[in-house]
Structure formats: structure tokens, C-alpha cells
């Protein structure tokens, strides 16, 4: 598969900065009627990296993925995947992609094993190779004992692992994971993380969307945060944390029945130039040297509690996209 793709990549009219990039989007726009789901985003995903696509519900993540996997035509802009134009070479691109869709779509008419071999046939993988690979992949996702089980007999976590296995039957160069761990228990999530890391070590490029910021922080080399179809911020997770919320976060708890305390505390923090967010019963302050003022604030404002913790990507995410509910 690979030699063919490289040959095509060399002949196609790709942009020059696409040399090592697996996905290059410029001004990628997707409209449904008048509604703009993806609004002119630029993306460059380098080979061998894990790239995060984060954003609140309805931000346009799945829509962007659908254009990258060539099942939904873009309205405007250009999009090259593995050096090929998504408008003209979708069959070739799709041969080299693996997809874990947001919603499981395993074939309920088949067993676990047959799901993999049937899928392999869509990639024209010879029968023997397909059977060998199916067994190896079941082993990889620790489902070998369920080889002959029916899909209805699997738990949610098992189904998700099977979808991951299915996305690998064609030995893809780019693996797209749309919320691979949503709804899974900690064991299943950790198993999937472990598999993603193993795939990265093999040199696969991974595009990951998730609503779990710890997951993104841990797995992604770079990420974008999008909202309403636009990119708000891009960078490495650590870099973004440093830039937006400093190194440390501290929850200054006043108790919900004391809004006047929060007002005074907020004014105090404003005066000290400390960034913070106001929640119902506490302020969430960010900055590098918060413990120096912790005791002073606590006594001065009569705080019930102060909780110090590491600033996380979740803090960045909430600061950038706001705390209001979506949808």
C-alpha cells in the first residue's frame, strides 16, 4: 500500500509545506445550508505525531473529521491528506486511513472475528492476510476470547476496542479517533490509551478528538481548541497551559452563601494582577506564585478552604471556551 501512496503523493499538486505533513488544511470550510459548521480552519498534522482536535459539543470536530476522511465534501478551502487532494483522490486516501467513529457502527449480523475480516475485504486485503491480521488485532485489543462472540454480547468497552481493532485492519498511515474513550470505565480507557501510545511508537499518525482533557494532555503532541467552527488556540499542551493559566491553580473557597466575600476577594486579586474565574462558591485563581499569598488571602477574607493544584488543560479549555453549556 505504502509505495503506491508515496508515488501518488509525489505526482500530485500538493502545497510545498506538505512534505512531511499528513494532513494539510487551508481555509477549510464546511457549510450545511446557511449554517457554518467549520469556518475556515488551517491545520497541519505532522507525520508520526498525535494531534488533538478539542472543542465543546457542536464545535465542528466530527464535521472536520468527515471532510478529512473524504466522506463529506468541503464547501471551501483546500484539504490534502497524505499528500493527496481530498477532492480528487478519495479512494486512494481512504485506503490509507483508519477510523474510529464517534458512534459505534459494528456489523450486528456478524461475529467479532467476521467483523474484522469483512472489513478487510473492503480494502481488498487477501483472505489469508486478513485472517492473520484479524487474529493479531484481536490479541492487540485483548479480545481474543471473544473471537466468535456476537456483537450484541459485547460490553461498551469491548465494542470500542473492537472498533479500534477494525480501524487497523488496513494498516493505516493516519488513524482518526473520534472520542474513542467516551463512556468507558477507567480500565477500558487506560487500555485504549496504552494502545494509542503503542501505535504512536510504531510511527502512526493519530488524530484524536476527546472531551477528556487529561487524555488530550497525556497523549497529544499538539492540539487545537476549536469553537463554533473556528480555531481558538493551537500548540503543545504544556505550552498552552503555561501561556494561559500559568503553572498553578488554586481554588479559593468562600462558601456559596457569601457572595460579598467573593466580591472582595475578586477585587483583591484584580489589584494583585492575578487572573481568576468566578464560580458559584469560589474563585479559581491561576498564576506561578500563588502559595506566597495563600495564607494572607485565607485570613484576610476568612476563606473556608484553599485547594492548591496543578493547572491543567481543562483550565485552559474552560478559559478559552467559557463555562456556558452548549447545545
Amino acid at each position: 500500500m505504502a509505495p503506491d501512496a508515496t508515488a501518488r503523493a509525489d505526482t500530485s499538486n500538493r502545497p510545498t509545506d506538505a512534505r512531511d505533513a499528513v494532513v494539510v488544511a487551508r481555509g477549510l470550510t464546511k457549510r450545511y445550508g446557511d449554517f457554518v459548521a467549520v469556518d475556515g480552519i488551517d491545520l497541519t498534522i505532522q507525520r508520526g505525531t498525535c494531534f488533538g482536535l478539542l472543542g465543546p459539543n457542536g464545535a465542528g470536530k466530527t464535521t472536520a473529521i468527515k471532510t478529512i476522511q473524504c466522506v463529506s465534501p468541503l464547501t471551501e478551502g483546500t484539504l490534502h491528506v497524505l499528500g493527496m487532494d481530498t477532492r480528487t483522490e478519495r479512494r486512494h486516501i481512504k485506503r490509507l486511513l483508519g477510523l474510529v467513529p464517534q458512534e459505534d457502527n459494528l456489523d450486528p449480523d456478524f461475529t467479532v472475528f467476521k467483523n474484522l475480516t469483512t472489513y478487510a475485504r473492503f480494502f481488498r486485503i487477501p483472505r489469508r492476510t486478513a485472517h492473520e491480521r484479524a487474529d493479531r488485532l484481536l490479541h492487540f485489543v485483548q479480545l481474543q476470547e471473544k473471537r466468535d462472540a456476537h456483537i450484541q454480547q459485547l460490553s461498551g468497552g469491548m465494542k470500542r476496542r473492537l472498533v479500534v481493532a477494525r480501524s487497523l485492519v488496513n494498516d493505516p498511515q493516519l488513524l482518526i479517533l473520534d472520542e474513542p474513550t467516551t463512556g468507558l470505565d477507567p480500565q477500558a480507557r487506560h487500555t485504549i490509551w496504552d494502545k494509542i501510545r503503542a501505535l504512536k511508537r510504531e510511527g502512526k499518525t493519530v488524530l484524536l478528538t476527546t472531551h477528556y482533557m487529561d487524555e488530550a494532555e497525556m497523549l497529544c503532541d499538539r492540539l487545537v481548541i476549536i469553537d463554533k467552527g473556528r480555531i481558538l488556540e493551537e500548540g503543545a499542551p504544556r505550552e498552552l497551559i503555561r501561556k494561559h493559566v500559568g503553572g498553578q491553580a488554586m481554588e479559593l473557597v468562600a462558601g456559596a452563601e457569601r457572595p460579598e466575600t467573593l466580591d472582595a476577594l475578586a477585587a483583591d486579586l484584580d489589584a494583585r494582577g492575578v487572573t481568576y474565574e468566578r464560580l458559584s462558591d469560589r474563585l479559581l485563581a491561576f498564576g506561578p506564585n500563588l502559595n506566597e499569598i495563600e495564607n494572607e488571602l485565607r485570613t484576610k477574607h476568612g476563606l473556608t478552604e484553599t485547594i492548591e493544584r496543578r493547572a491543567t488543560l481543562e483550565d485552559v479549555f474552560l478559559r478559552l471556551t467559557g463555562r456556558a453549556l452548549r447545545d
Partner: protein
Amino acid sequence: MTEPKSDWDRPYDVRARPMFAMFGRNRDVFLKTWKVNFIPPIVEPVLYLLALGYGLGALIEEVNGMPYVVFIAPALITITMMQSAFFETTYSSYVRMFFQKTWDAVVATPLTIEDIMVAELLWAGVRSVIYSTIMATVVALFGLLSFPSALLIIPIAFLVGMVFAGLGLMASAKVPAIDSFSYVFYLFITPQFLFSGTFFPLEQLPDPIEHAALALPLTNAVILVRSASLGTTTGLELFAFVYLVVAAFVFCGLAVGWMKRRLID
């Protein structure tokens, strides 16, 4: 170099034949439960032949110079072609499209929506062949078919199957929900079932209705199958054949186009 044309507008390339993987998927599901699948086409004709052919037929002298059971046997085979193909691209395809999300999984592979549609249509055509061949075999055991001309039922079944597969998929592309198919069956399949020269000759009908009935796909299918079954000719076969070939291409073409519009957004 000119701006590359989009794949989405490019005409369907049959030579690549990627649709056979999807066809194979549907066949495998069918074969997995073949014992169950083969029962209806064996039992149904026996029931109809006994009830209508021999029961009701006993009250009827002769139709067009033949016993009533001989008259309706080819019609029963043709109705099977219609129903098996139409059912496949309505309920079955819709379940795969909407509830099982099978097509979503398949478009993520090198197959395109067109490949999947062509596979669904061909599979429905083949199902029509499988079901009507089994049924014809049972009918033949009653001594109601004339050979070798009755062997033509097999290719005719594929042609008729494609006509109704196309119509079924057109319906699937337009219905808002799966319940709507019951309307499609009542308004579209039931009238054809009754008024296509199936259970009584078209000449029994008032002239305008008779002519309207001649425009129905099933009427033309029955004309071909009856002539093949009895080894006779009415002079209408060429017209019926051309009608069905044109209808198969037009309906299947429209179905693929409408489905693309429904699914690609």
C-alpha cells in the same frame, strides 16, 4: 493544469468493481441464516397454489383457455420477484443505512456511496433470482411449467429484480422514517399485486384502467414470465422486455442519484 474536477461529480466507474465487497457482505449475512431464508419461498407458493389455484380455481371454468391454476402460477413467481427485490432495498437497506449504520462504516473504506448503492441494487436483483428460482422449482413440481422455455425465468428474475430494486431504493432515498414504507407498500405494491394481469386477465378491466395497467412494471414482468412459463407468445414480449430494461436503468440511476443527495452533505 486545470483545477481538478471533484470526485463527487465523477461518473460511476463500474470497471473498478469495488462494489463486490459490499455485495459479498450482504450475501454472507443471507447465507448465515440460509435455512430460515429458504423457507418462505418454498411454503408460500404451495399455500397460494392450494388456496387460489385449486380452491378458488375449482369455481372458475377456464381463463384464456387454460385452468386457473396454470394462469396464476407464473404471476405468483413474478410477484415473488417484485416483493423480494423491493423488500430488500426498502426495509433491509434502510435498516443498514439508518439503524445499523453499516453504510457509514463502509464509506470509511475505499468504497464510495455509489459502490454501496450498486451493491445493494445488485444484491436485491440476485435475491429476486434466488427466491423466484426456488419458487419456480416448487411450481414445476406441480407440473405447471413448460420446459425448456421456463428456464428463461432465471434471467427475467434478475431484470425484474433490478426494476423493483431501483424503485425500492428510490423510496428509501425519500422516506422520512421507516414507518413510511407501509404507505409505499399499500399505495404502490398492493395495486400492482392485484391489477397487473396477476389473478385475472387485464381484459376484464374497463378500457382506460386496462391501458393504465399496461404501464405498470409488474404487468410487463408478468407478460414475460407467463410466456416463458407456458412456452407461448402473446406478441407483447418485445415491448415488455424493452420496457423493463429501460425501467431498470432509469430507476436504478435515479435511486443512486437520490441516495447520494440524501447521504452526502
